[in-house]
């Protein structure tokens, strides 16, 4: 077998990086939605991805529902979990402080993880790829069709969200809550409902990420924590609160990881994302596309 060229190798790393990065981007977008409306960082964000994958496995593989039905059904179910998180852990807190809210979302993430291990066990599960597994060769790099689905859904999500937040009343109402909840409620916006909606939306996006990535990398009950941390790193890299930032951050983070693992050290793969996070936090917390003024205004 001939050696493949360095260029092909680099291209391969890039493609893997963009695919993995799309998942981080979706997690980051989910973080931003909730953050924009509530200024809360939801540590349970990664669990939505995990649930998306596992519930889809249940509906599509165990119950035999066709893909076209199982996909939206899974999203609805995970959305319900998101709403549940808001109702159970966020809304009831009487005196919300940063510490309390962080701990509340950590608590829920542990609960979800534990419940998942009870229901599905500890083994990984597989989903059939949406359009088969015949790889496409491209300039010496090998691309799985599923990669396109992942990246494709990221693009669809991004477009849908920008239309939602910029063009619809509901979306604008949600943004209003982020800027100034008191003023928002004065003009008749039900802030509590907007918060619930933000969790619902976040959960839905997480579910999409989980469903699309499972055919590539399987899914198991404890995948959530690392996804949340890396997704957060992506969000911070791009600038907390900025959607284009989240997408850019996710793709860059995925690529750094992929190149780092391939070119530097595969054992430290997870550390790359975290080191990037620390560097950003220490030197430019507003990230690539955030602005310093906005981060000062935010309460947290």
């Amino acid at each position: 077998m001939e050696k493949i060229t360095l260029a092909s190798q680099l291209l391969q790393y890039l493609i893997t990086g963009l695919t993995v990065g799309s998942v981080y981007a979706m997690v980051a977008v989910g973080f931003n939605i909730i953050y924009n409306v509530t200024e809360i960082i939801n540590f349970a964000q990664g669990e939505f991805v995990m649930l998306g994958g596992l519930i889809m496995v249940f509906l599509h593989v165990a119950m035999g529902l066709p893909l076209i039905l199982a996909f939206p059904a899974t999203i609805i179910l995970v959305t319900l979990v998101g709403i549940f998180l808001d109702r159970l852990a966020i809304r009831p807190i009487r005196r919300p402080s940063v510490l309390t809210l962080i701990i509340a979302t950590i608590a829920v993430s542990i609960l979800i993880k534990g419940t998942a291990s009870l229901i599905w066990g500890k083994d990984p599960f597989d989903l059939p790829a949406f359009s088969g597994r015949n790889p496409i060769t491209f300039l010496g790099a090998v691309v799985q069709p599923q990669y396109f689905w992942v990246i494709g859904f990221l693009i669809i999500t991004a477009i849908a969200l920008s239309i939602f937040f910029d063009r619809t009343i509901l979306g604008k109402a949600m943004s209003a809550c982020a800027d100034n909840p008191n003023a928002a409620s004065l003009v008749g916006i039900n802030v509590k409902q907007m918060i619930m909606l933000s969790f619902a939306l976040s959960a839905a996006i997480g579910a999409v990420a989980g469903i699309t990535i499972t055919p590539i990398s399987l899914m198991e009950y404890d995948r959530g924590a690392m996804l949340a941390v890396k997704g957060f790193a992506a969000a911070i890299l791009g600038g907390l609160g900025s959607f284009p930032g989240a997408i850019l951050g996710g793709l860059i983070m995925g690529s750094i990881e992929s190149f780092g693992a391939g070119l530097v050290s595969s054992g430290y793969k997870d550390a790359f994302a975290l080191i990037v996070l620390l560097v950003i936090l220490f030197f430019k917390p507003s990230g690539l596309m955030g602005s310093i003024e906005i981060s000062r205004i935010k309460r947290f």
Partner: protein
Amino acid sequence: MGLLISQANAFDGAYKVGGVFSVTGRASFLGDPEKKTVEMLAEKINAAGGINGKKLELVIYDDEGDATKCNLKVKKLITNDKVCAVIGPSLSGLSLAVIPVAEKHKTPLVSCAASYKIVHNEKTGKPYKWVFKTPQSDSMAVEAIYMHLKNRGINKIAIMSVTSGYGASGRSELIRLAPEYNMNIIADEKYGPKDTDMTAQLTKIKGMAPAAIVNWSIGPTQVTMIRNWKDLGMTAIPLYQSHGFGSRKNIELAGGAAEGVLCPLGACNIAEQLPADHPQKSVTMDYLKSYTAKYNEPLSSFGGHGWDALQLVVDALSAVGDDKAAIRDYLEKKQGFVGQHGIFNFSPDDHNGLTKAAFSMVIVKDNDWALVD
């Protein structure tokens, strides 16, 4: 009610044996089948009248893969539950951690973990007095693989390993034994146990064009790795897995990509494929039938280690009773013990009792195992 009373009277005393397994937690794929196996075995033994008329009482604790809990549970078994021997733990690191406890309390410990260090005190070069183990050492699996590669005329290989105890141990054996078999390791890649994608590492390996790849991992990463290997179009490079691959479930999860993958396996994995005159045929077939009938799930290679450990202790109990020192002495002299993973021959210098003959090379063919020469 009458039946219960007569059952209770059927035993004239009891032998208490303790077990610590990683039933839940990160190593549950080891501890869960081990626990199920020993419980099944104990049930069978007691149903057949116990050991010389005495009931076999198993006390099993879950260490959840955690060193602190393992230490506490082993101490509890010895001092509180007063068992005559301890089987387990499931993990190498944890086994190494509780060796001082077993030595201090002079209690035989039959570990179900693989590291050769469990039965080899680096300072003295000899086994620890009270500690035995039933799994084959990684070195034996590596030798089986290297033998096969050498016979095929391959010597330029790439290795991949997971950064867990299992992977690290296998990797160091692969590196250590390479010169002996003329193996030239041209790439040495690693990945984390929770990694979901190894294309970066495989791409790098693809760039080095080895003649074979040896992967040392356990759990989902071994399956993901196979899928990546296929997806990257690398199936022309033969892939060897470690003995951790030994479960039909892994073949299933790989979704057809595992066709042609090779690995070394202990006899209990391939009970059905063994020839009728193989010395381990009857115990392995018996285990296969009983386990799958009772638990309705495929046999796991690791459960076999539990079987071997408990059966050895039972053998000792039936010969010398429950004096700890007597059990230890008996185990150390035991020869020709037919177990799930090999035929054991213990000695004062060898508390594992196996050689590389305990492994057979197996290939995945038509979604099932097939023996290769």
